[in-house]
């Protein structure tokens, strides 16, 4: 499987996700610099977490205008799986590949801790192995927002990938870490080949992490 990880100035989970991909998928991904202009022949493009451009102005805004994003968008349109994690999710939203907006956490502070998420659409290439999983979040702006209409459309079209929940799978305010509408933790595009998610599967990918639920995302793609 040929995989690519896009690296922006300020990305800081690029190595982490590459390590996880190598362990789980079995081959080292190719790291693609933001100034490059093309990615050809990929089976998976990952837009990793971090603070691209320092998260200055608005998370993901400046990265979404980088030269490489044109190629990411072209690939996404062709149907290549694209996974955006955390800052990567913010970048995919800013680039228009995914809908909605990610606003400041309702607590107004950065949150780093484990959360539990429930797979809402378990039929996509990314989610066919997971049900309820635990993995860490680490973000300042993960508060998903979309208009009522948009949410309705996304629901009808099964674009909601993950929702924050408790151990029993109940989706409620207590299990919502950041104020996201409908506890949304991850969404898909219309064609379901683009996934953006706030939790970090690469940080729940080996035994030393204390939990390995994150592996399912990559195993699902392998399937």
């Amino acid at each position, binding site marked *: 499987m040929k995989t690519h990880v896009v690296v922006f100035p300020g990305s800081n989970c690029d190595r982490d996700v590459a390590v996880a991909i190598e362990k789980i998928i079995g081959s080292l991904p190719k790291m693609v610099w933001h100034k490059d202009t093309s990615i050809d022949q990929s089976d998976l493009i990952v837009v990793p977490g971090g603070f691209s451009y320092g998260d200055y*102005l608005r998370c993901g*805004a400046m990265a979404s205008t980088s030269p490489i994003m044109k190629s990411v968008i072209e690939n996404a349109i062709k149907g290549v799986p694209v996974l955006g994690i955390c800052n990567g999710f913010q970048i995919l939203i800013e680039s228009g590949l995914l809908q909605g907006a990610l606003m400041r956490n*309702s607590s*107004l502070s950065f949150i780093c801790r484990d959360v539990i998420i429930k797979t809402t659409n378990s039929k996509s290439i990314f989610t066919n192995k997971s049900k309820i999983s635990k993995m860490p979040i680490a973000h300042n702006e993960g508060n998903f*927002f979309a208009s009522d209409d948009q949410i309705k459309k996304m629901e009808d079209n099964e674009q909601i990938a993950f929702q924050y929940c408790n151990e029993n799978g109940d989706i409620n305010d207590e299990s919502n870490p950041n104020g996201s509408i409908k506890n949304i933790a991850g969404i898909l595009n219309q064609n379901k080949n683009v996934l953006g998610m706030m939790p970090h599967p690469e940080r729940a990918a080996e035994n030393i992490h204390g939990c390995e639920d994150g592996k399912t995302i990559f195993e699902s793609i392998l399937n």
Partner: protein
Amino acid sequence: MLAKIHITLKKDVLDPQGSVIANSLKSLGFDNVRDVRQGKFIELEIEGKDRDTATKQCNEMCEKLLANLVIEDYSVEIES
């Protein structure tokens, strides 16, 4: 020319930062404060002579980068 750009959250978007500020102000004794909203203020020097061109360019900057139109509104003023 100097461009002054204001970027504010749309009316129907919740502004948690604004409400925290409002609460803090109240606890400092400013009881007559209502409805605080926080936005961004960007100033930039733009070379050129024509105000209309500059305004057009700034609008474009907002659409392309500075504002997120899903949740934000913007306004541009040019001073020369």
